[in-house]
């Protein structure tokens, strides 16, 4: 665990207008002490993000497809259905995540049995990310050349097949890019989830870094969050490049 004297040394150094190098050395020396806590929190963050991403894709992808299919000129135009779906998505998009989290507490308790811990956090995270991902899916699908969809109709293709074999494959690079944006947003949301006891790196940063004035924890969580986001983004970019055939 952290040695309170380190913090004092660091604070003193900062107060003198400080020796930045000493501060960095102190931080690096402190890393092994912090690591067990950091590692547990990192695992919690990844756990929350992975599961809420899975739920968001399972719900958001069909929702995005429906938004495009029910639109005018879509596969099955249904203006009323589309208006309802679009309104629901907009409501989800317009709530600040921190408010949404609190607003769905009773639903979380009903589904998970508790409102604390990483598993409970998956509920608000998914609810926040589903409309976000659905809109991104909608945008990517709209990019698909209408001529290709028309050609598929002319070849006697069923609408369900057009979605599966034409629209989704053609939009795949955009869908992956949207997925990465969703993952990055979820990482950021998951840190907020820490504020109401969701666990993870955000929780650690607030408890240890902010409330106990331990700057080392603050820096360490910042570094780990940056690393996680960079890794997610790089994997996504690589996939998009590999899949893009245009």
């Amino acid at each position, binding site marked *: 665990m952290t040695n309170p004297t380190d913090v004092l040394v660091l604070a003193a150094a900062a107060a003198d207008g400080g020796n930045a190098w000493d501060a960095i050395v102190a931080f690096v020396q402190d890393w092994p002490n912090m690591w067990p806590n950091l590692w547990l929190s990192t695992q919690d963050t990844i756990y929350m993000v992975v599961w809420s991403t899975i739920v968001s894709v399972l719900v958001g992808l069909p929702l995005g497809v429906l938004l495009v299919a029910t639109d005018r000129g879509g596969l099955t135009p249904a203006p009323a259905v589309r208006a309802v779906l679009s309104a629901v998505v907009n409501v989800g998009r317009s709530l600040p995540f921190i408010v949404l989290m609190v607003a769905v507490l009773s639903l979380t308790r009903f589904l998970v049995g508790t409102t604390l811990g990483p598993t409970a956090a998956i509920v608000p995270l998914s609810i926040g990310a589903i409309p976000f991902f659905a809109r991104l899916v909608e945008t990517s699908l709209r990019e698909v050349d209408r001529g290709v969809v*028309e050609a598929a109709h002319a*070849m006697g293709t069923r609408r369900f097949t057009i979605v599966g074999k034409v629209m989704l494959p053609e939009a795949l690079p955009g869908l992956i890019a949207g997925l990465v944006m969703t993952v990055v947003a979820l990482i950021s949301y998951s840190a907020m989830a820490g504020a109401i006891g969701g666990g993870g790196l955000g929780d650690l940063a607030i408890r240890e870094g902010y409330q106990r004035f331990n700057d080392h924890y603050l820096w360490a969580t910042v570094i780990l969050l940056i690393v996680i986001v960079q890794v997610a983004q790089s994997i996504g970019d690589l996939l998009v490049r590999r899949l893009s055939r245009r």
Partner: protein
Amino acid sequence: MIDAVGLHKAYRLKKHQVTALDGVDLHVEPGEIFGVVGQSGAGKSTLLRSVNLLERPDAGTVAVAGEELTSLRGSRLRAARRNIGMVHQHFALLSSRTVAGNVGFPLEVSGVDRASRRTRVGELLELVGLGDKARAYPAQLSGGQKQRVGIARALASAPQVLLSDEATSALDPATTDSILALLRRLRDELGLTILLITHEMDVIKRICDSAAIMEKGVFLESGKVLDLIGTPGSLLARSLFPLPANGGPETVFITYPRSFDEPFMSELTRRFDVDVNILGGGVEQVAGQSVGRLSVDMRGARRNEALTYLSEHGLLVEEAGK
């Protein structure tokens, strides 16, 4: 092969209504290449899309190969569409699939197994001259090659009818030639019936047996290209041979609906003692025949006799003053 009767179609754009088809009758014989030419907005595209019911006409019936499509819906309509191939102006290839994947798409959709698909795709690519491009992606191909893929895909389910939506409009002249030659060869080899729309007169001239000129949702004239050229006042003849309109009242337009061995012009001066001055003219290969059109200034006492003489020999004579 294609019989469309009384087609009407209107769109509502904002407040006002646009009539795309205003009573069109279309009859395409088996094995024929039929071209519909017109400016953009004339309704050509709507007409073509009515044939495979991508757009359902408000009124009228469409029958292809004896089957009335306008009465079909759902799976029976989809099955009927597989007998009608379609080639698109901007190719409409799936960018995420290879050439082979694109050509095999219609087969995949209609449930043909993988092994048969492979064989058939190989044959089709050979047929359009792209045997070595099976594994390429559309983005790696030139426009002409993309259109060949489009044609191979349109032929995958062995349709009797091919619809071509401005298939050569996005291509350069040399590539246009090769694609038109390919279409003609496919018609000859496979006995395809081809309905094409275009805004280029050249396409009509090069490969069409029959043609229609379309404007504001109606056919202004339609029929066999050679018959149309031999019809007085034909818009098609005028569009195929743009002649200077600067002649005086003595100007005569003479159309040669085929090639003749007789030296008509020297015959005229000798027999009827008229002066003939050629103002302009052209000879074109139309529907496989040499067709010519001249604009001449003709003066002399026996001018009318001379013109009658030409008409009697099968030339079409139109006087500018009349």
